[in-house]
């Protein structure tokens, strides 16, 4: 990146390595029972309807089978949900988050220092919600946005403060708990996350940012993000994830629901860097109304296994979807990710770009579904998947599915797989770069078409993570 040097960077390596001792106020019993769910809800002082939704989701979760019949899907046999503690509330006096940075316990401040969050704030990001374990403990929304009616708050707080909006949108028509087993699990035990509301015709120029982090051994993370962008509004939401290394398998099963109203524009960016023992099984979905635009930017670097297919339902005429996906799988990782788009209205458009890199026995898979409904005339979709393989221990799969029920459409899918060329490496070496730098440069070039479309801080973060991944293999 040419302007990299103008930017502040977070030290992702430091982020990755440290962990803190636990002093939690409340820790639910292991395993999932109705009792656990009631405890969670009670502890949060939730309205009855939310408890009911949780209990219904629990029933659905118990009923549904594990997804095990997908061709070539990641191995989930080591995942024992019952063993993963679903909910931990950090030891903070003020429920719903501290108003000021200084009010946070030192230990948590210290953790955030290393995550670079105050720094990010100094960079004038418009709001910072940082999730330490399950609850958002620190919130700050710049006043000018609040004046315009923009809401950016902890999801738990939203249940209390914006009850009607939440009741209407929370796991109803976008991601119902019945969607899949992990969505059901999420619906039962969700905790924390962000609620974002952008009123009509308001444009939030700066990205709204949230960091999530898992820090307790064997602890699940089930944060819920609900974004409502009213007509003509615009927002860019950034989510970053990283968890320190632990011995037992962690589970992350977040839920993201985005409502993009007429002419609204939402960009949702994630760089996921969960530790290499995390099962990352998320459900992310957007419903896009007339002439709305939804953009998903996902970088999947961490986790043991990821199954993530952000979905856009293009419901209104002229709605647009844009997916950018980068996956990097190293030793022991299985990154199964892609996109889903439903074209349910005429003149809808989707573009999916995917780049994946596998090395040291890692596996990447692009799994994508594009569905064009009967009557969605003049819709178009274009999918491009490129994969780069480092070595012969790795695996790179591509599994697109196209379901076309309308003839007046334009559907194109292209995919390539290749290796790092020996000649290319030699050429760069002969110009003075060592073997590793040469490979790194080729990888950076490979994902460049995607990074150039990213917000700059994301591009930097991604490149840093890739450098770290690649260095890791050399040491």
């Amino acid at each position, binding site marked *: 990146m040419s302007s990299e040097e103008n930017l502040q960077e977070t030290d992702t390596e430091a982020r990755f390595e440290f962990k803190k001792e636990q002093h939690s106020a409340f820790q639910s019993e292991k395993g999932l029972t109705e009792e656990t769910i009631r405890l969670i809800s009670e502890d949060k002082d939730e309205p009855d309807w939310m408890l009911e939704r949780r209990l219904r989701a629990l029933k659905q979760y118990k009923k549904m089978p594990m997804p095990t019949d997908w061709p070539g899907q990641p191995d989930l046999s080591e995942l024992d949900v019952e063993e993963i503690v679903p909910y931990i509330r950090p030891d903070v006096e003020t429920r719903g988050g501290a108003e000021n940075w200084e009010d946070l316990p030192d230990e948590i401040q210290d953790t955030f220092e290393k995550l670079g969050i105050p720094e990010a704030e100094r960079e004038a990001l418009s709001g910072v919600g940082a999730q330490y374990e399950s609850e958002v403990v620190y919130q700050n929304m710049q006043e000018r946005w609040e004046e315009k009616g923009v809401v950016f708050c902890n999801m738990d707080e939203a249940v209390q403060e914006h009850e009607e909006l939440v009741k209407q949108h929370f796991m109803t028509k976008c991601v119902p708990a019945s969607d899949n087993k992990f969505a059901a699990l999420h619906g039962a035990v969700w905790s924390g996350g962000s609620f974002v509301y952008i009123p009509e015709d308001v444009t939030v120029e700066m990205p709204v940012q949230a960091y999530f982090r898992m820090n307790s051994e064997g602890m699940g993370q089930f944060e819920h993000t609900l974004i409502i962008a009213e007509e003509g509004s615009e927002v860019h939401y950034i989510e970053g994830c990283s968890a320190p290394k632990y011995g037992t398998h962690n589970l992350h099963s977040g839920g993201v629901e985005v409502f993009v109203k007429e002419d609204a524009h939402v960009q949702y960016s994630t760089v996921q860097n969960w530790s290499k023992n995390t099962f990352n099984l998320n459900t992310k979905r957007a419903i896009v109304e007339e002439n709305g635009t939804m953009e998903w930017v996902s970088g999947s670097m961490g986790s043991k296994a990821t199954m993530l297919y952000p979905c856009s339902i293009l419901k209104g005429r002229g709605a647009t979807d844009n997916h950018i996906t980068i996956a990097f799988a190293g030793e022991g990782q299985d990154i199964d990710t892609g996109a889903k788009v439903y074209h349910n209205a005429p003149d809808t458009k989707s573009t999916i770009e995917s780049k994946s890199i596998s090395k040291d026995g890692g596996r990447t898979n692009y799994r994508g579904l594009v569905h064009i409904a009967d009557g969605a005339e003049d819709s178009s979709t274009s999918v491009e998947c490129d994969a780069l393989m480092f070595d*012969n221990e790795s*695996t790179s*799969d591509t599994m697109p599915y196209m379901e*076309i029920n309308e*003839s007046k459409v334009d*559907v194109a899918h*292209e995919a390539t797989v290749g*290796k790092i060329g020996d000649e290319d490496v030699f050429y760069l070496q002969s110009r003075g770069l060592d073997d590793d730098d040469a490979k790194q440069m080729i990888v950076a070039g490979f994902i460049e078409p995607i990074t150039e479309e990213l917000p700059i801080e994301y591009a930097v973060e991604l490149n840093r993570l890739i450098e770290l991944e690649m260095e890791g293999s050399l040491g």
Partner: protein
Amino acid sequence: MSGATRFHAGIDVETVERIAEERNEPKWLRAKRLDALEALSDLDYPDVIQTPGRTWTNLADLDFEALVEPFDQTEEKDWVADDQATVVPFHEALNDADLEALVKEHFGSVVDPEENRLTALSTALFTTGTVIYVPSNVDAEDVKIRTTMNGTSLFNYTLVVTDQNASVTILERQDTGADAATEERYYSGIVEAAVGENAYVQYGSLQDFDQSTYNYTLKRGVTDTYATLNWIEGNIGSQLTKTGVSTLLEGESSETKIVGAFFGHEDQHFDLDSKVWHRAEHTTADLVTRGVIDDEARSVYEGVQDVGRDAWDTSSYQRENTLMLSDESEADASPKLIINNHDTEASHSATVGQIDQEDLFYMEGRAIPEQAAKNMLVEGFFVPVLEEVEVDELREDLEERIHERLH
């Protein structure tokens, strides 16, 4: 076993024994039939693609077995071949000691009879077939096989074996007899090909059954070093077709090409898959399929390029294009790459669309009526795959059938 009571004649040991007895089959074959029969109830239907809330082809609801009439497998078969290659009806081959040994060696070695419920059914009940054997260094003339189906069900088996440096082109055509009753019928065909070192086989097939036919075929070949196996798969007829065409590239530097063309109309349903497994170094595969669907027809395409861990220096390409002529038609496609060796150059692409309106407008501007222009464009759409067809006769047949369907 589902619907066992609805069989026109029992699919049971007695039936299988009788088929074998009437044809005076050797013990080993009888045993294979009985094994397949026994396995039947535990086997699943062939894999079909499923996505959330959708099954691309629903085979389980079609009761293939109910269409089976083991003792009414009537057909007409013509073979055209020259002296250099051996082309004989399956059961005639068993009368010749050398040929019987050849059949015994290869039967069921490429397509496991117990691969799925339909292959097992086919193995248990087949009554007709062809054995093609081309000895070393023989460059055989084109072999032509025409199968005309007259009964309610027909189970057909074809074995192709070529020795070192042999070369042969095989052209197979299937259709329905003019006198055949209009009730529903079931055709099932299995083709196994063992292509020897540096041998060349082109196997072309044109399926043109009437639209009361349910058609299941599985064609698979295995290649030795430097061998080439090219498949051409034309699908025009049938009510429902489920086919698999595949090559196992087992010999170093071997090659395969799978060329497909289909044209579905009315309420036809085609579920076509092309698969290649790269299992040796320096292998090359090229998968090219083009299809047109009209009316309420539905097409399902799956293409798999699977590169094994030891398949160094692989080249593998796949292209699939579907043209939709009607709003009520439906096209599903899933081209897949499974790559386990990084020394691979692989790509695939797929498109679905309609006739280009600009092209149409241009032609109409040159005074060509709309329908004629459309027809020209459809015929033009098929040209890239037709060009891959090396057998003139097959290409001309395909062209003719496409032309007929358009007019």
